[in-house]
């Protein structure tokens, strides 16, 4: 909070000095006069709103949209097919085009549906997903609001998603979506327990709920990461956290609420157009949230450590690959524009030639080199931001990889797994970390 | 157990009134049984040790215009021999007793024969049409069946689609 206050004071001083320098008869004088009377609290609110919307608009929404494209390419590559590569260089603009398509589609409301609740439901999901990014530390100075009850706030806000799904299922007057909503209510509520307990362990070790303190605790390189802090117990806690977070977000193997093969498409069967799109933006935002919390709570957030390098290599390689494709895309696009069939035709029919093996190796070497460079530089706030993003996006990739491998649990098996397997295991882990802390203090 | 031995044992087991005629020279040994005695004959044939026809392969109804003939194509996994049991049902009131109690597989076979040929089976648990919609008139596999031009306002003739002159499709009249 303090850096926001400093910024606001500096801004107010600059405002005053500017009004002083204005000449007496300039027409702007009354306007700036009023501006000076505005109290400091209002400016604080405006700056907080600006930083929040900047973080959400510039970082989360593009990442959520972009991961729809990444999911289709990952799925394609796993299933020995190509995936979408037509719109823009290698299909990078696909999610923008999807957004436009969804907006142009008619969002039909079924006849017997409860209209108000039907329209309200997706906003609960969006709310739940985006509000929880407020307390996530993205980089050295980049955090929306560094509240000291971080973990508690996260758990509270992420249960808004359940209300959204229940509303969607109930209000669309369709038996299948009602079944999907009931399943999701059971699933998310029951997986709150292992999720909460697994987040309790880092809180116990660090002693405070705030994510910033969690981060500072893991500052001295990767040996201080919380995943290794209490030996096997935190290690198990990390995996239980990851799996129950999967259940929180309805991703395979727990995608029972929108199980295509049984419930047609679960709670979002009756939705269409951008209203349906909102469900999916929320889902992908939630996926990135899981990655974010996992890195902050267990894997050292944006702190500088040698172990960040593999994550950096992973993301830098794909960034360089995409950049090279864009570089090759330019001339090819111009050349296909020459065929005088309009921009859209050119956009769809520009073929960038695929890269040969040695070129890919060169890219890999380049990304290893630059990631070591970044590691050295990572005191700089922008680099720490990039470290955090690449680390959490690695988990998003793992989630996508799991989706296209594992089948789906049955409802009772999923509940059985939660209550009979994870919850007792978490009791053991919490007890274990407590004893571990006692023993290490002596 | 050769076909001849089987048939001879069957004929002396049942008197003339039940087993009307049988022959083993043709491709498949077959036996014609009186319609009222069909349930008794088939349960005997299924449960008896040296026949044990435990597999009802198929139940084929055939419309011979004067009567409707129902063929029970039987097979025995134990002995590996087969037999076709035929009965003739009057075409005006086609009634016969159901064999669902003997082979549960017959449940759907009989519903299909009822649907496509109009033979209703007494004692069947759920006697209704299986393939065609319930309010469909007529039984398609009858030789005198003529398809109506449209069903509930939807035309069943293909040519209205293409606006083509009436192509010489093989209508049932000149087929039989």
């Amino acid at each position: 909070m303090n850096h926001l206050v400093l910024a606001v004071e500096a801004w107010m001083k600059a405002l005053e000095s500017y009004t002083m320098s204005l000449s007496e008869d300039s027409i702007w004088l009354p306007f700036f006069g009023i501006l000076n009377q505005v109290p400091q609290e209002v400016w604080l609110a405006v700056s907080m709103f600006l930083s929040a919307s900047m973080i959400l608009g510039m970082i989360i929404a593009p990442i959520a949209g972009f991961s729809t494209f990444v999911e289709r390419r990952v799925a394609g590559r796993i299933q020995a097919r190509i995936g979408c590569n037509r719109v823009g260089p290698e299909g990078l603009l696909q999610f923008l085009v999807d957004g436009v398509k969804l907006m142009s589609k008619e969002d039909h409301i079924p006849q017997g549906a409860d209209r108000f609740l039907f329209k309200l439901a997706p906003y609960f999901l969006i709310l739940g997903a985006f509000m929880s990014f407020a307390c996530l530390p993205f980089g050295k100075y980049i955090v929306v609001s560094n509240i000291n009850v971080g973990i508690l706030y996260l758990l509270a806000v992420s249960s808004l998603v359940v209300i959204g799904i229940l509303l969607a299922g109930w209000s669309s007057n369709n038996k299948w979506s009602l079944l999907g909503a009931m399943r999701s209510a059971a699933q998310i509520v029951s997986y709150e327990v292992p999720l909460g307990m697994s987040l309790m362990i880092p809180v116990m070790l660090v002693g405070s709920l705030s994510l910033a303190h969690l981060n500072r605790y893991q500052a001295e390189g990767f040996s201080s990461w919380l995943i290794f802090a209490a030996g096997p117990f935190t290690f198990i806690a990390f995996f239980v956290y990851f799996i129950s977070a999967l259940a929180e977000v309805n991703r395979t193997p727990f995608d029972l609420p929108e199980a295509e093969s049984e419930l047609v498409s679960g709670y979002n069967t009756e939705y269409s157009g951008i209203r349906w799109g909102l469900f999916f933006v929320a889902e992908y935002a939630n996926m990135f949230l899981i990655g974010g919390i996992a890195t902050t709570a267990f894997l050292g957030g944006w702190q500088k450590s040698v172990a960040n390098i593999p994550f950096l290599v992973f993301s830098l390689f794909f960034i360089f690959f995409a950049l090279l494709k864009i570089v090759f895309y330019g001339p090819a696009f111009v050349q296909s524009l020459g065929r005088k069939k309009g921009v859209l035709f050119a956009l769809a029919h520009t073929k960038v030639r695929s890269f040969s093996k040695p070129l890919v190796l060169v890219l890999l070497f380049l990304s290893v080199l630059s990631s070591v460079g970044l590691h050295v530089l990572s005191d700089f706030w922008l680099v720490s931001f990039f470290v955090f993003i690449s680390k959490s996006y690695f988990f998003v990739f793992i989630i996508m990889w799991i989706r296209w491998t594992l089948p789906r649990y049955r409802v009772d098996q999923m509940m059985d797994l939660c209550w009979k397997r994870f919850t007792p295991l978490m009791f053991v882990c919490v007890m274990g970390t407590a004893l571990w802390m006692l023993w290490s203090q002596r | 157990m050769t076909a001849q031995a089987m048939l001879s044992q069957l004929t002396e087991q049942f008197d003339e009134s039940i087993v009307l005629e049988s022959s083993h020279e043709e491709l498949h040994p077959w036996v014609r049984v009186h319609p009222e005695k069909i349930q008794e004959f088939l349960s005997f044939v299924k449960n008896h040790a040296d026949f044990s026809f435990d597999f009802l392969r198929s139940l084929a109804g055939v419309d011979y215009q004067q009567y409707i003939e129902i063929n029970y194509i039987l097979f025995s996994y134990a002995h590996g021999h087969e037999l076709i049991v035929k009965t003739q049902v009057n075409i005006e009131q086609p009634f016969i007793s159901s064999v669902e109690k003997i082979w549960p597989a017959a449940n759907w076979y009989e519903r299909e024969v009822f649907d496509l040929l109009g033979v209703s089976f007494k004692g069947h648990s759920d006697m209704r049409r299986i393939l065609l919609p319930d309010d469909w008139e007529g039984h398609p596999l009858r030789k005198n069946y003529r398809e109506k031009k449209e069903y509930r306002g939807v035309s069943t003739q293909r040519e209205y689609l293409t606006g083509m002159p009436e192509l010489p499709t093989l209508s049932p009249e000149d087929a039989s």
Partner: protein
Amino acid sequence: MSSIQIQHFDDEMEINMGPQHPSTHGVLRFRTLTDGELVRKAIPEIGYLHRSIEKIAEMVEYHGFMPYTDRVDYVAAMTANHGYALSVEKLLSTEVPKRAQYLRMIADELCRIASHLISVGTFPMDLGAVTPFVYALREREKINDLIESLCGARLTYNYVRIGGVSFDMPDGFAQRVSAFLDQFEPLMNEFDDLISSNNIFIDRLGGLCPISKELAIAYGLVGPNLRASGMEWDLRKHLPYAAYDEVDFDIPVGDGRCGQIGDCFDRYWVRIAEIRESVKILRQCLVQIPEGEIQAKVPKTIKPPMGQSYAAVEAARGEMGYFVISDASKNAYRVKIRTGSFSAMSIIESQSKGLMIADLVALIASLDVVAPEVDR
């Protein structure tokens, strides 16, 4: 749509797993009466794909009916052709040349692998794993290309003729098939790893509605569904037709490896084992195929003598039998087609009591019921 009224309990919900539903393969419909998730009664409604093929058989000549037999089971059309040809040849008592019999066997086994790949591919997709389906289809495409080079079509082959086959092997066909088989087996093991060792599958399918041997025989189940219930019966081995007696292969029988005998996992496992058996048969056929002409002397318009004949073939979904009645005219008097899916479908109603919806979907997928065979 049905005339009888089903008495409703107060808290019962009637869900319509309608003709358009992602997990009923093709247009099948189940009116399920459920109490929340638990299915109290699932009433199958069929007939959405009824093309009255048996009526067409009475209006078309014997040769002309062959392409319609493809449409009886378009997932494995070759065995359907083969069955019809066998039945009419029995009437005409013509002797099919040895090379034609081997060609028919090669095409049959290729088709069996392709059909089992569809069944084994859609099974995990109904349980949520999408990738195995795509791997299975990738292999099936290779088989489609092989058969396309053999007879010209990918799905509705119309390859078998009464008395022989229409085309001989194109040159290089045998090498291409054995090359396909060599690369197919490691991919098949990889496909199987994704499923058989996966404990989520084993939990979901182990012990799910086991069908005992007696019940299977009573309901007329045939093929993999019967063998999964522990009954060792395969027409190719016990009533050999074509040249199956010159080829040795063994019959996989369900042994309750992940639960009881005859449960859904057994039905899945039997199909995987059968694919490996078919690969063995194909290898032997490619070696043993003799030289010779491929079509026996058969008149242009066939007029078989009066009589009836029933010939059965071991199709991918069990015994497919053609009961042909001829009255010495150029059209058959009556053709009754017996299919495996029709009887497999009739057992669902009694087996579906007390299942959950997800299990009902698994049961339908395990029985490998396809709509064209059920409705004909």
